[in-house]
């Protein structure tokens, strides 16, 4: 099997391939000069597809699809995502592309800035705004973090197409159980220390949420300070930050098949965004966040300042699982053994915004 790692950066998309997940061949930049905040592999069909959110600082955002692993890219004539007339809004950036579960093979979700959720039923070519979330009465009060106001996390339930959980910066977690007809905030137990009432119904600044591989009602969330777990589908959250050296960071990734195993990349704090102790370390938990162990064999030694952004840490679907992360310094690291050892995929790339991996 060939393993492919898609690396979205501030100035282009790079596709790396490997036979053993230790040595990698890295392409030149696809879409050079364009920011790639979202990339996804869709491996549900007969051929693997790559979907990329391609963002031009001059000419706006789009979604392009390759069905030949990056040899060629297709973009529809009509805009893939466009707010309907009357909304007086325009898509500024695509932050997330998420193929739905196996029960809906043609369905792909996208999350954008401004905070909106979109559904495609044609494999991700064209999308419709999910109106009930856009019209949610909370929306005028959703804030915007430094990265903007965006839905950056979309977790369709693997067995129940009616259930979707989304997360946005300075808005929080929302979920639906009726296919998107109605949405409710799901932030009980998540602290918003930056608000006068630190326990609001919504307004929390979620950075990333990951779903447990074995229990679809179990989630792990990295917040703007605070690391949490929900074991009841998002009804409530409890802290799992105690075993980490810091509760600040951006990404959270889950093992593809084993429950309770997750990875995180802690930073010192909101005001000091650098790795704790200036060490390049990933932290892994095998018990749902109760305890954490640093993993750094093969990662750079010495003072290390770059950060890992919210979508720049991921796992693949291999066994053992591969783990990958990229930094704002343009380095990308891969582990073929669940984080025990690491090798360098690439260096000197533009700032890494997102990584996704799959067997193709």
């Amino acid at each position, binding site marked *: 099997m060939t393993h492919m790692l898609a690396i979205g950066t501030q100035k282009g998309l790079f596709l790396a391939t490997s036979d053993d997940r230790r040595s990698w061949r890295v392409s030149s930049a696809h879409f050079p000069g364009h920011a790639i905040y979202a990339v996804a592999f869709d491996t549900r069909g007969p051929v693997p597809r790559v979907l990329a959110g391609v963002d031009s*600082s001059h000419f706006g955002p789009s979604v392009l699809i390759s069905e030949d692993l990056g040899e060629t890219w297709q973009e529809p004539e*009509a805009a893939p995502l466009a707010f309907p007339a009357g909304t007086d809004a325009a898509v500024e950036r695509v932050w997330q592309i998420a193929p739905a579960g196996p029960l809906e093979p043609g369905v792909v979700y996208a999350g954008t800035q401004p905070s909106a959720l979109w559904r495609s039923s044609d494999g991700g070519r064209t999308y419709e705004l999910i109106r009930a979330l856009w019209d949610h009465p909370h929306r005028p009060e959703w804030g915007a973090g430094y990265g903007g106001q965006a839905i950056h996390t979309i977790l369709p339930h693997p067995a129940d197409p009616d259930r979707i959980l989304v997360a946005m910066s300075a808005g929080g977690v929302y979920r639906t159980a009726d296919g998107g007809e109605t949405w409710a905030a799901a932030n009980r137990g998540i602290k918003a220390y930056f608000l006068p009432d630190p326990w609001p119904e919504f307004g929390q600044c979620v950075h990333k949420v990951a779903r447990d591989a074995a229990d679809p009602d179990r989630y792990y969330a990295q917040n703007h300070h605070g690391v949490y777990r929900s074991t009841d589908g998002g009804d409530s959250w409890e802290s799992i930050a105690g075993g980490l050296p810091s509760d600040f960071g951006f990404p959270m990734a889950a093992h593809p098949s084993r429950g309770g195993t997750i990875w995180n990349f802690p930073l010192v704090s909101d005001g000091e965004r650098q790795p704790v102790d200036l060490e390049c370390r990933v932290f892994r938990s095998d018990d749902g966040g109760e305890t954490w162990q640093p993993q750094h064999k093969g990662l750079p030694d010495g003072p290390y300042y770059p950060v890992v952004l919210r979508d720049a840490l991921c796992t693949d679907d291999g066994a053992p699982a591969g783990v990958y992360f990229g930094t704002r310094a343009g380095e990308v690291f891969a582990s073929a053994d669940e984080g025990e050892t690491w090798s360098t995929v690439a260096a000197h790339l533009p700032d890494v915004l997102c990584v996704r991996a799959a067997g193709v």
Partner: protein
Amino acid sequence: MPSVLIPGVLRAEAGGVSRLEVSADGSLRAVLDELGERWPRLERRIRDESGALRRYVNVYVDGEDCRRSGGLDAPVPSAAEIQVLPSIAGG
């Protein structure tokens, strides 16, 4: 008949040509509406779906920055030359 000069980075969205002839005149809005009908991928790189000119795209009508001459309502005479240029932006 107005003509629209296409910058190199957008020519792939205009069939590879550097100049398009359009039949619409009167206002820049009418010209861009026609672009949207005939070359939708080109037009959406100039305007977003709300109809607003993208912030870092400049459009000149006979050398006049449209933002100083009415924006989308900028008058477009029948023989006008409309130039689309990416502005200085980015890092």
